[in-house]
């Protein structure tokens, strides 16, 4: 399921962009993510799915370093996380209600802040920086709104601004946390088009999504979180199959009891049921 080393011209980038081994995350003493292992190959488009509270956002926050790992190891592009400094290779689109703040900021300014990973301290924007910012704005289709204040834009346009901000640093790996939350269908389609162009360029994408909608055709691989563990990792799933206890008809390598159709419990206790017990259980 993971394609190995792709482009020979990029040399170093043959290492997996993301490699998490037995990662666990603890929030306020409670284990939230337990023993999650995830390797994302270059150029792969991975959808990280699951119900609310399943830990999908927490997992992506752990992968970006926003949540420290309580256990396990994380490597980005083959470098252990603690010594990773190539932040210009990573683009992050956080989960946001909007792109505004207490002071007006134009689309151009917000997108320009994504170029910081490639700028030196106390230097003005170079010609290359300006070109990259204009390209990023064009790619999300906001060129005619570049000078507008972000808070005057619609929710979908604000979300596209945040994607352009991540694009401005020309990263190879994108983390997107629910980019389509609260965005109407036409804008979801516009977002999906943008992500499709990233995929064509060979970018690696890790997308957290509650529902894929128009982004479904882009997905190479689905990873489903359930109660803090990776419950499924394999071929793309439809939005409804994600919430199916058996993940639709897709066969998986996980502990799914095919011999017990409809069985919802996946514990290892032997199940001894007789007609009498079941009747008592139903009454009690």
């Amino acid at each position, binding site marked *: 399921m993971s394609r190995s080393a792709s482009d020979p011209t990029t040399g170093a980038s043959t290492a997996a962009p993301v490699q998490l081994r037995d990662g666990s995350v603890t929030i306020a003493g409670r284990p939230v993510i337990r023993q999650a292992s995830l390797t994302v190959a270059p150029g792969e488009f991975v959808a990280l799915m699951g119900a609310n509270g399943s830990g999908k956002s927490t997992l992506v926050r752990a992968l970006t370093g926003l949540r420290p790992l309580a256990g396990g190891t994380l490597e980005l592009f083959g470098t252990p996380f603690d010594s990773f400094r190539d*932040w210009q290779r990573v683009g992050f689109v956080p989960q946001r209600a909007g792109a505004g703040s207490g002071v007006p900021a134009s689309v151009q300014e917000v997108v320009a*802040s994504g170029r910081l990973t490639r700028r030196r301290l106390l230097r003005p924007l170079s010609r290359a920086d300006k070109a990259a910012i204009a390209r990023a704005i064009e790619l999300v289709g906001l060129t005619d709104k570049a000078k507008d204040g972000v808070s005057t834009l619609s929710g979908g346009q604000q979300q596209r601004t945040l994607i352009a901000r991540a694009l401005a640093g020309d990263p190879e790996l994108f983390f997107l946390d629910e980019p389509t939350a609260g965005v109407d269908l036409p804008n979801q389609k516009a977002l999906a088009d943008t992500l499709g162009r990233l995929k064509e360029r060979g970018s690696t994408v890790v997308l957290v999504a509650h529902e894929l909608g128009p982004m479904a055709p882009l997905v190479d691989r689905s990873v489903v979180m359930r109660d803090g563990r990776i419950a499924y990792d394999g071929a793309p799933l439809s939005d409804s199959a994600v919430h199916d206890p058996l993940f639709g008809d897709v066969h998986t390598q996980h502990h799914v009891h095919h011999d017990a159709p409809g069985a919802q419990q996946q514990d290892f206790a032997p199940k001894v049921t007789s007609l009498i017990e079941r009747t008592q259980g139903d009454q009690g």
Partner: protein
Amino acid sequence: MTVADLFAMPFMQRALIAAVVTGLAAPVVGTYLVQRRMALMGDGLGHVAVTGVALGLLTHTSPTWTAVIVAIAGALLVEVIRERANAGGDVALALLFYGGLAGGVFLTGLAGESAASLQSYLFGSITTIGIADVLATIILAVVVLVVGLGLAPQLFTVAQDQEFAAVAGLRVRFYNLLVAVLAAVTVTVAMRTVGLLLVSALMVVPVATSQQVTNSFRATLYGAMGLGLLASAGGLGISAVASFRVTVAPGPTIVLVALAFFLITWPLGAWMRRRRRLQEPFADLAAAEHTRVDEHAHEHGEDCGHLAVEHGDHVDYVHNGHRHAVHRVEGGHHYDEH
């Protein structure tokens, strides 16, 4: 004595220099604080700095420098509390602020100083500022301006979105502490001009005024600096002119001038926001049902007085709650009412 004579006096020139550098520097930090939605941070640090001033009076050292040190310590403490933010975060800040003010007044008493000597720090005493204090004000203001403008891309990014900044490899914690320290320094810079209790006004009011009419961060920042400069120099001037007849304290005058700018700009900003909303193009959707109106007493066109809004390939004129679009056909025209 004329106004020109007054401004020829050395104490007035020192006051003018202090007013100019304060007016320029305070809104720079204020912009970052407003962006972080921490507009009252300056006010709180002003309260904490009162203890610093009192320590200076108690130990007979320069209150300016003890105030800088105590305000920085307070700012770092605020930042630590904010970082560990829980439900009681702002209550903890309140404790710190009132502790600072009460501690300051208490220590001033211990120092055997009268309330009047503290008052010159609470409400400013720009006309009694000495050479050493002018120099200290200039140095601190230059530090604020160089750091606040030089690191603007980094400070903007961190204030706009901390999580994004962290994943972009910025040392978010460092920049948060830096803004806190800059705020503390600014409080002390403005202490002699407008006073510790009115410091926050000079940091925040020009920003609030500027953002009424801007839609970019850069324009807001430079606009606020310009307004801060006008307000502090203008306020000083007004109080100087008024001083021939009545006693007018420069500090509160500066703040009132800044507020007057806001009151003038606010209706303008409200009008601009309303106009922008009205002129937002109508969605170019497939034609829904519309009513055809053959007889229309009025010819719509440019400058006809009706609001013209783009709608796909034509212009609609908003008219008594309808959207009128002229529909030209062979041998005449009629109006479509959308």
